[in-house]
Every structure is written in C-alpha cells, then in structure tokens.
C-alpha cells in the first residue's frame, strides 16, 4: 500500500508542474499588454514610469525566468498581491476556502444519500415501473442546469413557502445554521451528481448481481438482505467510487456558479469579482487553489479505491 501511495504521489509531480505552467501562462495569454490593460485608458504614464511598473510586476524579464520566479514564490506560499486591495492573495483565498469546501462536501453527501438507495432499488426492481420512472428522473436531473435549479429553489422557498434562506454562518459559530444556509445551494449542486451516481450504482449492481458468487451466496441459503449488504453492494460500489473521483471536478467548479446565484461569499464569488476587476493575481490564485484541491481529492479517491480493492494495488 505504501509503495502504491508513493507511486501515485510521484505521478502527480508532472501534473502539478503542468497546472502551475497553465496558471502562469494564463496571464501571458491576455491580448495586449497586461500592465497597460490593468491601468486602463484613464491613467497616463511616462515611458519611464511604465518601465518601473513592469519591473515591479516582474514582467520585464524573459518568460522562463518569470516562470522560475513564479514557481519559487508559490513554493514559499507567496501567491502575489491583489492589484485592487494591495493585500496578499493567499490569506484572502484561505478565508473563503472553507465555505466552498463545505458546499462541495455537502453537495456530495446529498448526492450519495439520494443516489445509492435509489440506484439499489432501481437495480433490484429492474424494468419495473419504479425503475423506469427513476431512470427518467435521473436523466432529467442530469439535464437541469445547476444555476437554474438554484434560482428555482430560491423562488419556491422565498415566494411560495416564505422560508428565509439565511446568511452564511461559519461552521465554527453554529454548525446548524451553516447547514441551513448551505443546504439549498448544495442540493442545486448535488442533483446532477446524484443522477450520475444513481445510474452507475444501478448498472454496477446489476452486473454484480449476475455474478456466480452471488448465486452461490443465495444457494447456500443466505437471506436476501445479507447477500445484498455483505456480498453484492461492497463489490458494486468499487466502480462507483471511481466515478465519484471524476465528479469532484464538477462539484468544485460548480461552486463558482452556485455561490454566485446564492450570494455566498466563497472562493467562487472572489474569482468572479476579480475577473470583472481585472485583478489577475487573485484569478490566478483561486484557479490554482481549486485545481490543487481537485488533484488532492482525486488522489484521496484513488487511494481509497486501492484500499478497498487490493487488485489495484498489486495490479
């Protein structure tokens, strides 16, 4: 297991390097001069001042040197300074990280809670009316834009049910209020994942239920409940976990859109605000942090997968 873990971590190095290169190059892709773009058309500068400013931003050196500087700064935890507030970028991102992370986690939890039971019932009652209805509902869930679902949830709860949505309260202050403020956004975000997980639970379980060891388990007189919980389900969940890993990207990226519609002060709103203010160091910082979170969660899923299924470790 340790060797597997080490090889997985080692395989991440080129990917991390690539992520850093992409985030670094993002700013170089801006058409025209980034410094001029930041200044806008109102500010008049003398050529000498422009050179000074270029030196300040470090864009006067060759690109490879700039990249090396960038890497060195990132490894020191220096994500640069906001062009608007002049504050270091990283602390601002880190204060907003918990909200986005809690939102994504809660969405995942909601998706799993909806998907696994429905997928099991769908597989067991294959081709029944229930199965057909569940599968069509699943396809609908996959087709709803998450931000529209969010808007509809706000509409229903505030206009018709008169339930105030409540402001975000940090977990450390009152976990119940945190849960309350994040449950609707998490539902809007989690529905598509629930649909995907349900489909995979169903098809994976159907495959396992056709295996010989399930027939053996039934043949030796085990109760249906035991066959399902001890033999079928654990094996059926293995491929579902891989799917879960892929979906972490959807959840982390989706927080940007969902935070916007529910006016939640997370990393997503920070990055959108920064985009419209042309505050590129903040944009770079948030994109980097979310990509790193995605890579780390994928690693955790991979390791979990290998821990559950020894065939992966020794394969």
């Amino acid at each position, binding site marked *: 297991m340790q060797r597997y873990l080490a090889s997985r971590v080692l395989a991440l190095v080129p990917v991390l390097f690539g*992520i850093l*290169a992409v985030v670094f190059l*993002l700013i170089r*892709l801006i058409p025209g001069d980034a410094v001029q773009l930041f200044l806008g058309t109102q500010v008049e500068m003398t050529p000498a001042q422009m050179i000074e400013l270029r030196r300040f931003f470090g864009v006067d050196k060759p690109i490879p040197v700039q990249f090396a500087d960038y890497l060195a700064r990132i490894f020191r935890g220096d994500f640069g300074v906001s062009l608007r507030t002049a504050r270091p970028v990283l602390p601002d991102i880190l204060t907003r990280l918990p909200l986005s992370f809690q939102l994504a986690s809660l969405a995942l939890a909601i998706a799993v809670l909806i998907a696994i039971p429905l997928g099991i019932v769908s597989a067991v009652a294959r081709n029944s009316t229930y199965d057909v209805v569940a599968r069509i509902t699943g396809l609908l869930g996959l087709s709803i*834009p998450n*931000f529209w679902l969010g808007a*509809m949830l706000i509409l229903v709860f505030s206009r018709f049910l008169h339930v105030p949505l409540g402001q975000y309260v940090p977990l450390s202050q009152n976990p119940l209020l945190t849960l309350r403020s994040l449950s609707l956004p998490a539902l809007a975000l989690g529905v598509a994942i629930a649909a995907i997980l349900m489909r995979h639970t169903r098809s994976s379980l159907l495959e396992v239920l056709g295996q010989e060891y399930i027939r053996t388990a039934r043949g030796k007189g085990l109760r249906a409940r035991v066959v399902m919980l001890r033999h079928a389900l654990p094996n059926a969940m293995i491929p579902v976990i891989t799917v879960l890993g892929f979906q972490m990207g959807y959840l982390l990226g989706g927080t940007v*859109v969902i935070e916007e519609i529910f006016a939640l002060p997370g990393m997503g709103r920070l990055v959108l605000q920064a985009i419209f203010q042309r505050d590129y160091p903040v944009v770079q910082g948030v994109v980097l942090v979310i990509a790193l979170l995605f890579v780390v969660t994928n690693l955790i899923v991979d390791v979990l997968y290998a821990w559950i299924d020894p065939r992966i470790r020794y394969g």
Partner: protein
Amino acid sequence: MHNRVAPIGLVIIAANLGVALLAPVIVPHDVRAMHPVDALRPPGHGYLFGTDEFGRDVLSRVLMGSRVSLSVAFLSVLTSVLLGTTLGLTAGFYGGWWDALTMRAMDIIFAFPAILLAIAIMAVLGTSVANLVLAIGIVYTPQFARVARAAALTVRGLEFVDAARALGLGNARIIGRHLIPNVLAPITVQVSLSLSLAILSESALSFLGLGTQPPTPSWGNMLSEGRQFLELAPWNAVFPGLAIMLVVLGFNLLGDGLRDLLDPRLR
C-alpha cells in the same frame, strides 16, 4: 428502455434545430423591440411567455436564444472532435514521445475542473463568440483524445493493420482507411454527450456574464437578467431554463441510446 427513448431525444433535437433555423421567421415579436408599456407582463395577453423588464417578448427571445446556444455548442464540440481525435489517433498510432507528450497535456487539462478552466480562459481572452467556442472546445478536447487513443491502440495491434502495412500502405492511408472507421462509433457517442455538456457550459458562462453578451439573447444571459426580477416576474428565468433542460435532455437521451447500441457495456 433506452432504445425506445433515443428516438425521443432525436425528435427533441430535430425540433430545436428547426426552431433555431426558422427563428427569425417564426418569432412573434422583434427580440430587441422594447415596449416599456408592456414591461414585466405575465404570460398570456399577447405574450405567451410574458415580457421582460424592457417589455421585450420572452418567447421570441427564447426562440432566438436557441441559435446562439446551439451554434456555440456545435462549433465548440466540432473543435474538440477535430483537435481531440487527431491528437488521440496519432498518439495511439505512433506511440513513443508524441504519445507521452499529448497525453500528459490532456492530463493537465483534465486536472482543472472543466467549468473553472472555461471561466479562466474567457477571463483572459475576453468575451466573444469565437473565444467562447475556443474555451469550451479546449475544455472538452481530452475526452475525445482519450476515446480516440484507446480505439487506435486496440486497432493498431490487429492483423488487418499488419496486412495493410505489408501491402505497402503508408501511415496516412492506414489511419484514414482503417483507424478512423473504427473510432467513429465511440466518438459519435461522445459527441452527443459532449453537446449536452457544451450547452450547459455556454449557458453557465453567459449566466456569469462571461459568455454571450446582451443584447444578443442567449438562454444563459436571459437567466442572468431574469434573476433580478425573480419574485416579481419569475417567467423571465423559468422559460430559458426549461429550454436549456429540454435540449440537454434530448442530447442525453440520444447519447444514452447510441451508447447502448454501440457500446453494450453500460446497460
């Protein structure tokens, strides 16, 4: 179930394409014509889907919006298919350093959440339809590269490819005559599923103000404008969302049906 619902998906898509093509002819009102007297009218009263805050007809805007959503989706998936299939086929066929290079590049794109990468690309390139197509196209390229590479690897080792080579066929001929026909099935399935994702991405980007810009109506920016009057005039947000859902459902139904037909593993 799927083989019965795939035709439904096809009908939904065909109907939407028809509406998009005929939109300029069939819209009941000019999409940019403002009627301040009729602002925020509820559905009915000469406006089937109601009006927005400028008194513009929501139905007409939804119909015209399909043109932007569908054309951006088709063009961006076309970009992904051309780019991804070329990279994947050549990577799988030639192997070696080219394979390593292209697939690592694909891994890096995959290491970003799709919508976040599209947001970042739009943020630096600026909002235009061409950039929108490029951003969504890049984000969904790795899927096609992986599918094409896997197919190329399977076919590469088969005897008929050896036979073709023994007959003196060049690499280009082998790729064109023997590899491409064998990747068409998995690519077709992926195209249908990617179209649904591309429509969702376009509407999300436009919703955030990073995609199609007003006054050109697109389903995403209509939702963004309608959101400001959510309680007062919910129809402004409801109908564009329903339109997105319907088309995406159509592509998902079709993609599912095609997958069952062409790839029987997931049933």
